[in-house]
């Protein structure tokens, strides 16, 4: 039975939950497929995550391997294929708790960087799991900056082999997933040397473990890098190479080749390969970043209507904590953000699909813009969602701190997204470089990509809002965001110019402006997100039922951003002090409105209880019973504590006699 406090929240939603779910899925037909996949996986005991919170790193790793192996069988059984419509829902249903994700990257890099001959040799072996691959790029001392990698591959003409070496400790490969225990092969990125000349970083296929007994190959030192904040199920590894020889054919040579006589040949364009790297950032957003935020919102909001604390009105029952303005102000903007990012992510995916088709026609014009998009949005969305999940965690008080709430693991997992696939600060600066370039071009009257034409447009210098209701107009707030982005980009560009004109060297001037540059890049992405959300809502008009609530969420997302960054909007007087008070009033007025639909809004995300795996966030709201039941399953309660016999007992009995 559903906890009455939660049941009452579902009685009068202002919209159809089912319709909103269908919109989130991109159509009711997708919802059906997703539910079928989730159900099949939830019902299979091999995929159960029931004891996950009690397991050690070793047990988690083993479970992940077991599940991955079982998944092959399951897919075959269910008739799911890698190209089928079900595939993308499998990962969501498993909550990513499987191994061999790097095996896929291994295969992808061979398909992308390998010649047809190499593809024909390796891909069938890999798809049959006759070997397990990994992808070894990052080193102990070098991450995002690829040119700095220190691993070497020296070509030996005599034997037609490359000799791979880890010349010093900081050059050891460090972090690659699946490499610590599972992988038999890996793609190693190393500096290529031929005849004593360095040709830069190139990929090599290297076998690291025996295919017979899984022992390490000669010259290989590899292992697990030890416990992390999360990803206990993944064996992130280290790898040291000592005079490891691989045949000439093991260098992936679609774009570059070392010929038998040592001649280095470059062919074709690497741009397409570069593009694939940027798409990875976008493809991660949905599963690794936005979905976790949706889960955190679901848990925190359901719990906030079950939890009661203090009294709002004397003589009445203690109030649901979601009825407190401060609690609404913590959670509802995060909920709005989840919807906003869902919307921008759809837009980006579409844009990248289109870009991909263009690039296949060898039209590379959109590449810089797409690159700027992927860097900036990856940084902005991961950072925003990470802090949003933490807000959800802390909004659940003490129980949020229990692993059984599911929130600590959601948080420790999502926060890795701020670092992998490019450290966020560095990515923001890449986007900033693009913005500054476009701003200069636009100022000089040249044409610029569509997403940045706004940088040149002349707009009013004062916000036209007259009363607080004006701030519920998308044109008003979108323009405010646009103005702010333009101001930050143009003022930073001016500062950069000034520094350079005053004789400061270019790179030094750039370093002196980086704090502002990062801020400008964020403002640009924030503006595009608001604009996109407003346009998405606009288009919903015809679909009755969900447009109104989506408009509220869009307003809340936009006003929350102005409220939280008030100084940036007030700075040049675009928004006046009096107008800022209107923003605050409108913003706070929206909270109780969305409050009424808060539970239906998270119900629409449609997570099964097993997917959520949270004692606080289940659909039925039986929070306390579940906490109690789950705690009793803890291994710490299964046996008498060994510490008692060994230490406590002597302490309890002997101290007295000693004294």
């Amino acid at each position, binding site marked *: 039975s559903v906890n009455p406090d939660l049941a009452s929240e579902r009685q009068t939603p202002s919209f159809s939950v089912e319709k909103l779910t269908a919109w989130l899925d991109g159509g009711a037909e997708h919802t059906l497929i997703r539910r079928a996949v989730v159900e099949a996986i939830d019902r299979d005991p091999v995929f159960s995550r029931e004891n996950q919170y009690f397991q*050690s*790193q*070793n047990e988690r*790793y083993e479970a992940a*391997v*077991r599940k991955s*192996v079982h998944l*092959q069988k399951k897919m075959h059984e269910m008739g799911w294929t890698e190209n089928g419509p079900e595939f993308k829902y499998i990962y969501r249903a498993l909550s990513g708790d499987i191994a061999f994700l790097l095996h896929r990257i291994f295969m992808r890099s061979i398909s992308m960087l390998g010649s047809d001959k190499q593809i024909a040799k390796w891909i069938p072996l890999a798809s049959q799991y*006759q070997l*397990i691959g990994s992808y070894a790029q990052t080193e102990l*001392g070098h*991450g*995002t*900056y690829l040119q*700095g990698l220190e691993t070497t591959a020296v070509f030996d003409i005599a034997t037609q082999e490359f000799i791979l070496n880890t010349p010093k400790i*900081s050059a050891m490969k460090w972090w690659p997933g699946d490499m*610590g*225990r599972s992988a038999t092969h890996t793609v190693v990125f190393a500096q290529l040397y031929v005849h004593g000349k360095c040709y830069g970083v190139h990929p090599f296929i290297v076998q690291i473990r025996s295919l017979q007994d899984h022992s390490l190959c000669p010259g290989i030192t590899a*292992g697990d*890098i*030890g*416990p992390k904040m999360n990803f206990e199920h993944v*064996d992130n590894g280290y790898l040291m190479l000592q005079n490891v020889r691989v045949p000439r054919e093991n260098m992936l040579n679609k774009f570059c080749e070392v010929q038998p006589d040592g001649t280095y040949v470059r062919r074709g364009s690497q741009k397409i390969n570069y593009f694939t790297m940027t798409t990875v950032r976008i493809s991660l957003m949905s599963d690794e970043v936005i979905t976790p935020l949706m889960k955190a919102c679901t848990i925190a909001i359901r719990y906030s209507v079950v939890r009661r*604390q*203090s009294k709002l*009105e*004397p003589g009445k029952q203690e109030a649901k904590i979601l*009825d407190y303005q401060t609690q609404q102000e913590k959670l509802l903007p995060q909920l709005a953000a989840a919807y906003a990012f869902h919307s921008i992510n759809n837009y980006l995916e579409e844009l990248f699909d289109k870009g991909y088709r263009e690039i296949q026609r060898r039209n590379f014009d959109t590449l810089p813009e797409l690159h700027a998009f992927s860097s900036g949005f990856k940084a902005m969305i991961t950072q925003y969602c990470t802090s949003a999940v*933490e807000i959800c965690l*802390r909004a659940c*008080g*003490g129980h949020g*701190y*229990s692993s059984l709430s599911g929130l*600590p693991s959601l948080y420790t997992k999502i*926060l890795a997204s701020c670092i992998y696939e490019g450290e966020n600060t560095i990515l923001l600066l890449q986007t900033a470089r693009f913005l500054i370039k476009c701003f200069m071009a636009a100022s000089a009257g040249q044409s610029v990509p569509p997403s940045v034409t706004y940088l040149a447009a002349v707009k009013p210098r004062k916000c036209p809002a007259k009363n607080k209701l004006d701030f519920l107009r998308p044109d008003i707030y979108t323009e405010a965001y646009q103005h702010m982005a333009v101001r930050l980009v143009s003022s930073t560009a001016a500062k950069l110019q000034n520094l350079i004109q005053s004789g400061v060297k270019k*790179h*030094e001037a750039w370093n002196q402006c*980086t704090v502002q540059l*990062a801020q400008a890049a964020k403002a640009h992405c924030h503006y595009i997100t608001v604009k996109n959300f407003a346009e998405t809502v606009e288009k919903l008009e015809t679909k009755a039922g969900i447009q109104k609530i989506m408009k509220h969420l869009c307003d809340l997302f936009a006003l929350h951003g102005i409220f939280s960054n*008030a*100084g*940036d909007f*007030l*700075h040049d007087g675009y928004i006046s002090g009096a107008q800022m008070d209107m923003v605050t009033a409108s913003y706070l007025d929206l909270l109780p409105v969305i409050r009424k639909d808060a539970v239906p809004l998270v119900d629409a995300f449609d997570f099964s209880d097993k997917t959520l795996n949270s004692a606080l966030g289940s659909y039925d709201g039986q929070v*306390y019973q579940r906490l*109690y039941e789950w*705690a*009793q399953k*803890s291994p*710490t*309660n299964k046996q008498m*504590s060994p*510490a*008692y016999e060994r230490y*406590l*007992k002597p*302490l*309890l009995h002997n*101290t007295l006699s000693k004294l």
Partner: protein
Amino acid sequence: EALVINDPDFQHEDLNFLSRSQRYEQAIRKSSLMVMKLREYGIADPEEIYWFKSFVHRGRPEPLDLHLGMFLPTLLTQATPEQQDRFFMPAWNLEIIGTYAQTEMGHGTHLRGLETTATYDPATQEFILNSPTVTSIKWWPGGLGKTSNHAIVLAQLYTQGQCKGLHAFIVPIRQLGTHEPLPGITVGDIGPKFGYDEMDNGYLKMDNFRIPRENMLMKYAQVEPDGTYVKPLSDKLTYGTMVFIRSLIVGDSARSLSRACTIAIRYSAVRHQSELKPGEPEPQILDYQTQQYKLFPLLATAYAFHFVGAYIKDTYHRISGDINEGDLSELPELHALTAGLKAFTSWTANAGIEECRMACGGHGYSRCSGIPDIYVTFTPSCTYEGENTVMMLQTARFLVKSYTQVSSGQQVTGMVSYLNDLSRQRIQPQHVAAKSVTVRINDPAGLVEAYKARAARLVEAAAKNLQAELNHRKSKEDAWNRTSVDLVRASEAHCHYVIVKLFAAKLSDISNAAVRAVMTELCLLYALYGISKNTGDFLQAGILTDAQITQVNQRVKELLAVIRPNAVALVDSFDFHDIHLGSVLGRYDGNVYENMFEWAKKSPLNKTEVHESFHKHLKPMQAKL
């Protein structure tokens, strides 16, 4: 410190590689040893015990925390002399190990909502303890799950058919000798948490469990044999303990943030990345402006909180003297201030520790960096001893009260005395802005004025909004709730002002000129960075102009470059021993990479070269496909 670090008995495997059960066992082992050694060395001074304990457990929680920190002190302050005779010495000798069971599954900060009952039965002269609902199960108390054999239980007292509110009872929960739970008691561990692995936070359910009348702590309130209830005298006294514990959290915020800063700054001096100047070797990442902008304001914050923690502790000790003489007049302000500062500093430190971890890139995410551990251990302080938002609202209540007093013509004293100015002169933006600009930005005293004006403006705005809501609506509670976001902002501004003020005031106490110079730079950075992060407040109130804000932003960046050469020395001054820091990235000698490799080799997954999963799963799969 040396005493503990050199003692082989206190050595053990890296905690990161141990399971929860093993970590608990290690902690218990060390606590048991610690008690023996304290007696052996004859250490009895509370301050010395505190340091000894902190080195034994390397600043981590341990299962006897509640026994030492709550059970014994509560006996001292709330037990009658007879009760002390019965319980104190056995507890001191650890024959009795106790905990303090207040929080319930469904109820935390709002104490009146607790549901556990203690019903007096005059026939047998016993209290009957019950956990009537699931939500009333005691949940979270440290040491309750596996370690304790007694608990001080807070329950609603019922006698002669009436509820007399919350009272404390000494409840035996496990059989002495066998350590088995007593009949009527259900007790256990609440399962894994974000951190606190070594602590057996527990649950406790009681079914008609009877204890003698004499087990109610009766120094203040009493129940007589016939069931007659005798009321206690004053309840203000309990403020004292809360102030004390919250002041400890402020100190803890400073310490935890200092540790994270030490790790991140040392590592940033060791790590090299990319190019700053074309053709030159990769620079230390600490040379990047963005990295300095992440870390140096936090370093300044760590120092600021350090001074605030010392201030509260001193003030508490000063006021404690007054309290003993019956003067409680300063207590409400101190209580309100510590509530807010506890929230402000723990929120800031919490976010700051995460910043430090992020600033260490991928390696910060590895447990070997030590920062994940600092974070998960520190973060619950945002919730325990009073949830932070609730704390901020308590401070706000005091601020609004003070504002109301000023509005009705009374003067207020202490940290809120700036409110007096509101009635005399309205804040005049032009007046402030007209003052000489460049000097003010380099002058801590000038910045204190700016923060003061911001606090005054936000308190006034919140109080006015509250009044407006009150004029519109019936209930006081509803109006308060509808203003609470503003009220929290006002409290934050007030706390921020207090911290800047204390930091600035501290500068004149520093006699060494070089130290004073570097502390002045940190103080300026703290204050200016705070402005640049809250420009909206300063602009909207007309305290600073656009041009000044631009200057503030510029000055912040100049200070980063000024502090850069001293950055490592400034964290070395915190003087954390490597063992206490527990971080491979933050080692004093900076030999990061070699030691990361050494550390990883000890990981449990590396115990065998071929993991059992290969034989169990991988090999059969390869055979089948």
